[in-house]
């Protein structure tokens, strides 16, 4: 107490007024300190604002990517052929992740991995992005996010599904991991199908929950659906019949195309061998090719109707004009053309019915090369069918000025010229309609489509009659007949090219035809590559496939019959079958 009293006495003894210099020093010191703060504040606010704003925003503001969903691919009736669904990818950033032991156990359980396996994965990839699991269901992904492990990221992306698997494989193609088209229609129509991802600016709290929107984002632009011209039901039955035929004939490959004769739309387009696009990690290159559009072959006799049409149009022959095909062979400049049988005198109609090479060659040689070239070119040979399919080819039709007579003669029956199957099927629209070439389309068109007139209605009708005769018991393809419907078509058998010449025992068998003849609805083209099952003629290998496809397709489309149900007449077994020559 006494000490306090003593001190109090001391204070009281201090003079009331401080020395002037001490006031000044103190004031200056305070001003300097405040001044320093003001300068610092000015510096931070005025010169460093951008940097600091960014730093601050990185804690509270976040830009979120909103992925856009890719449009569906549907058939002509709206049934889904390809759909994208979200998948979640779990990965670790290069910084690595720091889970607590409890979090680690839970993570391993959610990922369906043993803790040891997970640990091994993480140890193996220090300092780089490591995808732990590429595909996780949304429910699991949500629970992994809820674990809040730093350094562990969950990313959403889309995966494409193809319910029809191998049936539509080469037609639709497939996408890459970013759901962008890589092959087939997915690639051709990528711009239409793919959406544009959107973006959101948001404010988050310290637990990274979104609490508010910060400024305008960009809404995602969803992809658009695409309706193909394909009829899913027909596609399945065509694929089934083609596959069965390729296997039964021990062939290397095969293709089949069904066109709507009135619009040129591709109703079905199948290839075998095929692949499952849902397991695209293992797509062998040769199975991914859409042979019906990207591969060419020498068509053989399926080209004869075009030679006949050219000769009819030029007024050089009539359907009943007689041509001498005896002695069944013909030599031009040292090269000889053969028929399988010696037929003697044939009418033009019989040349098609019996598929006489000599007859076709004689007609071709009556024509100026330019006229014949024009016929083939205007029927779409030598130019791609412009379906928009990636990698489609146009085949080879050499300019007429370079033709030698022997080449013109062999081209009359489809050698020395190459086509793809869609092109060949499309060319037959001139016979299925009254002489119009319809544009081939893989996309759904609305109703009737105008074509390009190529031949007169009278010539088209005349050739149609000849093609109907070719499937009669006296023709090369009675096995193409269909119960209850009149059909017309032409077989083709050609040696495969091997190096510079033709392979002696390897063939391409084909059949192109349409039905019902009274009012053609469908054009069906079948090609079997290298049949090795003992048969190789178009009439025995490809024609039965045509018959089965046409029968089922006309039934499926409810097309009225135009013939009695007992119209199919096969040649008597003791009669030798009519075989075309190759």
């Amino acid at each position: 107490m006494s000490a306090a009293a003593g001190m109090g006495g001391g204070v009281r003894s201090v003079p009331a007024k401080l020395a002037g210099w001490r006031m000044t020093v103190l004031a200056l010191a305070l001003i300097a300190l405040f001044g320093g703060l003001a300068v610092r504040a000015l510096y931070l606010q005025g010169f460093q604002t951008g940097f600091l704003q960014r730093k601050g925003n990185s804690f509270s503001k976040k830009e979120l990517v909103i992925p856009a969903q890719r449009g569906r691919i549907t058939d002509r009736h709206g049934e889904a052929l390809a759909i994208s669904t979200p998948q979640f990818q779990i990965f670790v950033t290069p910084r690595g992740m720091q889970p607590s032991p409890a979090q680690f156990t839970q993570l391993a359980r959610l990922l369906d991995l043993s803790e040891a396996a997970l640990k091994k994965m993480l140890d193996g990839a220090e300092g780089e992005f490591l995808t732990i699991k590429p595909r996780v269901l949304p429910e699991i992904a949500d629970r992994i996010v809820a674990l809040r492990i730093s350094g562990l990221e969950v990313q959403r992306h889309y995966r494409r599904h193809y319910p029809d698997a191998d049936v539509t494989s080469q037609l639709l193609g497939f996408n890459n991991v970013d759901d962008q088209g890589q092959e087939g229609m997915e690639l051709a129509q990528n711009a239409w199908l793919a959406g544009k991802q959107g973006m959101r600016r948001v404010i988050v709290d310290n637990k990274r929950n979104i609490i508010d929107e910060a400024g305008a984002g960009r809404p995602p632009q969803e992809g658009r659906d695409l309706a193909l011209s394909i009829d899913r039901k027909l596609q399945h039955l065509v694929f089934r019949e083609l596959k069965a035929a390729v296997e039964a004939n021990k062939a290397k490959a095969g293709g089949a195309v069904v066109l709507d004769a009135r619009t040129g739309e591709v109703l079905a387009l199948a290839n075998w061998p095929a692949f499952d696009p849902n397991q695209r990690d293992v797509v062998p290159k040769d199975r991914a090719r859409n042979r019906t559009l990207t591969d060419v072959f020498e068509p053989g006799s399926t080209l004869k109707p075009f030679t006949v049409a050219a000769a009819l149009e030029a007024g050089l022959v009539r359907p009943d004009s007689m041509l001498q095909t005896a002695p069944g062979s013909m030599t031009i400049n040292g090269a000889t053309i053969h028929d399988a049988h010696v037929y003697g005198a044939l009418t033009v109609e019989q040349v098609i019915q019996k598929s006489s090479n000599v007859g076709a060659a004689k007609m071709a040689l009556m024509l100026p090369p330019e006229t014949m070239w024009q016929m083939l070119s205007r029927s779409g040979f030598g130019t791609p069918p412009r379906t928009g399919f990636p990698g489609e080819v146009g085949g080879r039709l050499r300019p007429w000025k370079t033709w030698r007579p022997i080449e013109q003669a062999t081209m009359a029956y489809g050698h020395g010229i190459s086509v793809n199957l869609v092109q060949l099927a499309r060319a037959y629209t001139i016979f299925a309609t009254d002489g119009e070439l319809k544009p081939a389309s893989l996309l759904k068109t609305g109703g009737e489509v105008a074509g390009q007139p190529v031949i007169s209605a009278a010539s088209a009708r005349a050739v149609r009659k000849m093609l109907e005769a070719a499937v009669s018991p006296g023709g090369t393809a009675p096995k193409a007949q269909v119960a209850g419907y009149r059909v017309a078509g032409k077989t083709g058998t050609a040696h495969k090219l091997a190096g510079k010449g033709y392979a002696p025992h390897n063939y391409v068998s084909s059949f192109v035809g349409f039905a019902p003849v009274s009012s053609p609805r469908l054009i069906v083209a079948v090609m079997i590559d290298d049949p090795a099952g003992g048969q190789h003629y178009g009439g025995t290998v490809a024609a039965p496939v045509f018959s089965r496809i046409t029968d089922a397709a006309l039934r499926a489309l409810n097309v009225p019959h135009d013939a009695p149900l007992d119209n199919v007449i096969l040649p008597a077994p003791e009669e030798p079958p009519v075989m075309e020559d190759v």
Partner: protein
Amino acid sequence: MARLNLLLLALIVFSSLALITSQHQARKLYNELQVELASAKRFEEEMGRLQIEQSTWSTPTRIEKVARERLGMRLPDAGHTRVLGNDVSARGGSQ
């Protein structure tokens, strides 16, 4: 003068409180919106999965297999088919 100042102070306090309340309301509503948007997204995803499932179950190949194998159905042959309302005789053989 003092009264006016007091009134202004009261107004400021009131408007600040109102601002806080409305901001809180906005965040709460925004949060609800987020929840709803998330469930909308989930439904969309489920829709996609169901579409795939439907498409897979309805492949013509599978339907045919079920019809043939489980239901014992088959296509009628010509002997079991009668065509109605179709003038086949008039149309056949023309051209």
